[in-house]
């Protein structure tokens, strides 16, 4: 009980802010209506407020809890999310091969060991696998290589 649980505090605070954002945005922009004739804003306002209250409960509770240990990763999530982002940005303008290739190569960086040959081989193998499974076997209408007009 000597120190508070900072992680719980942050989690509760995030929920409070998120809930308040939902409630305030809905309350100012959408009609609330009455309980029997609910407008589009009613549910977001009520639930946003509720979420904010749950967040407050967690924040208060955090002062009476011992901190929990456990690793917080920053680099790995950034790399993985970056790999997905690369796929999303490349798939429509450039096609399947560039998107899978970029996604795979970026994702391998999450290992924190730089193995260029291995990651290039893996990217090639996965590109071919993606082509075989999704385009050849499942006949999805996805362009393999595109050049944006």
């Amino acid at each position, binding site marked *: 009980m000597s120190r508070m649980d900072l992680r719980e505090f*942050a989690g509760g605070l995030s929920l409070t802010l998120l809930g308040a954002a939902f409630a305030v945005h*809905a309350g100012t922009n*959408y009609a609330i209506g009455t309980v029997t004739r609910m407008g589009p804003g009613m549910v977001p306002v009520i639930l946003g407020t509720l979420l904010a209250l*749950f967040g407050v409960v967690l924040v208060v*509770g955090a002062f009476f809890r011992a901190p929990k240990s456990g690793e917080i990763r920053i680099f790995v*999530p950034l790399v*993985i999310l970056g790999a997905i982002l690369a796929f999303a940005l490349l798939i429509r303008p450039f096609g399947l091969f560039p998107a899978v290739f970029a996604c*795979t190569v970026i994702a391998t960086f999450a290992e924190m060991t730089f193995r260029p040959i291995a990651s290039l081989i893996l990217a090639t193998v996965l590109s071919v*696998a993606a082509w075989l499974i999704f385009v050849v076997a499942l006949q999805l209408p996805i362009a393999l290589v595109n050049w944006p007009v």
Partner: protein
Amino acid sequence: MEFFANISLGLETALSPVNLLYCFFGVFVGTLVGVLPGLGALAAISMLFPMTFHLEPTTALIMLAGIYYGTAYGGSTASILLNIPGTTSSAVTCLDGYPMAQQGRAGVALAMTAVASFFGGVFGILVLSMFTPVVAAWALSFGPAEYFALMLLGLVAASAISDASLVKGLAMVVLGVLLATVGMDPQSGTARFTFGSLSVLDGLSISALAMGLFGVAEIIASIRNTETRRLDPKAISLRSLMPKRDDFNRSWLPMLRASTIGSLFGTLPGTGPTVAAFVSYGLEKRLSDEPEKFGKGAVEGVVAPESANNAADQTAFIPTLSLGIPGSATMALMIGALMVHGIHPGPNLVTQQPSLFWGLVMSFWIGNLLLVILNLPLIGLWVRLLSVPYHLLYPAILMFVCIGAYSVHYSAFDVLVVMGFGALGYAMRLFGMPAAPLLLGFVLGPLIEQHFRRAMVLARGDFSALIERPIAGSVLAVTGLVLVWSIWSGSKASARLKERRLRIEDED
């Protein structure tokens, strides 16, 4: 006597070489598509839909239906092995399936899933073949008020799904409902939380949500994690794959209850297998003598949702075929396949097209049998997947997730949604907030909101009119009882836990 005549007519139709071939083709494609995360029955059926122009209507439907219930068999595989739901309805299976795999019981989980899926499927087919007209008439008596009451019951029954603290669980349900309000409000046409973007006008994609929250977050947490144990391929013997007698003893009652729940939800258009899976899991956890084992690899937590979603997949054909009302976009394609041939499903379908109806029903038996035969030998293969080093496996999973998300609407935005939910999912893990209740809120929240608002219009704003309706009123009463009971049993459980903790402290 007529019943047996129908059955033999159906068998004759279903066992014709052409139909048998397409049935096998359907369930095979279904299993494959189900295993791949993000790619669901809808995508697979849309792809093969043009084929139905050239097929007999019965054959076309047998094939499409095979894909449909085949995905439910395959969907659980990725849930158990990788903690990534292959289909949304198998997301609940992650909760206990993945812990089982981590304990080296992946083979058992997969085998019990196949058994449970078969059990649920067969149960659903029985309901379908014996009670279709009765059930269809009964489903008609469900208006918005009844749906509202039932969905509320579902939410309350399934709310205890997670292990986390009550506040965190409830907060995640609420967050799920809030996220589901994004998009155009069907009652007023107002665009909620879209900030002018057309991509979110139709709401956030549920498969993107499930893949991000479960799949991407799982990858982030597992990379270079010493705890992510890899399996020694030599350790996989046939014995370790086989469920034990104890697994069966624990499972048959949950399977029976879950199949009943699944059959119920399947018959009601618009609710479906995902809700059924959640509710049956929640119910089993409540009824169990050892609820603390759920979420840590309880076999009941795997068989219940899998029986329920397979039963629901089969009974979903009741409103589709006997009312001509599709319960989902997938079912709309089934009706479309018949419409191409000038057949409009409705109350007269069973009498006017007996060979179609009974042929289809009998093909379900055959298809489910084929699925078990197909899936049991595959288990050994799937389990070997776990022996692939993770640094090779995760880029592949990531690729499947990306392409799967993209292929739903061919929209790069859906891939970005996966990224967003991946970030949220990892943050939630850090804060110790459970993902399953969020998905539950996301699925049930909009149903509850929309049905309530519709019911209030139909009751002209009079809340008491809602309670006075016999079905809606009784379901709401049951909901109240469940709520009271769960608060009471919850406080008893926490008292018990406190007592135990005190005793341990005393012993210290």
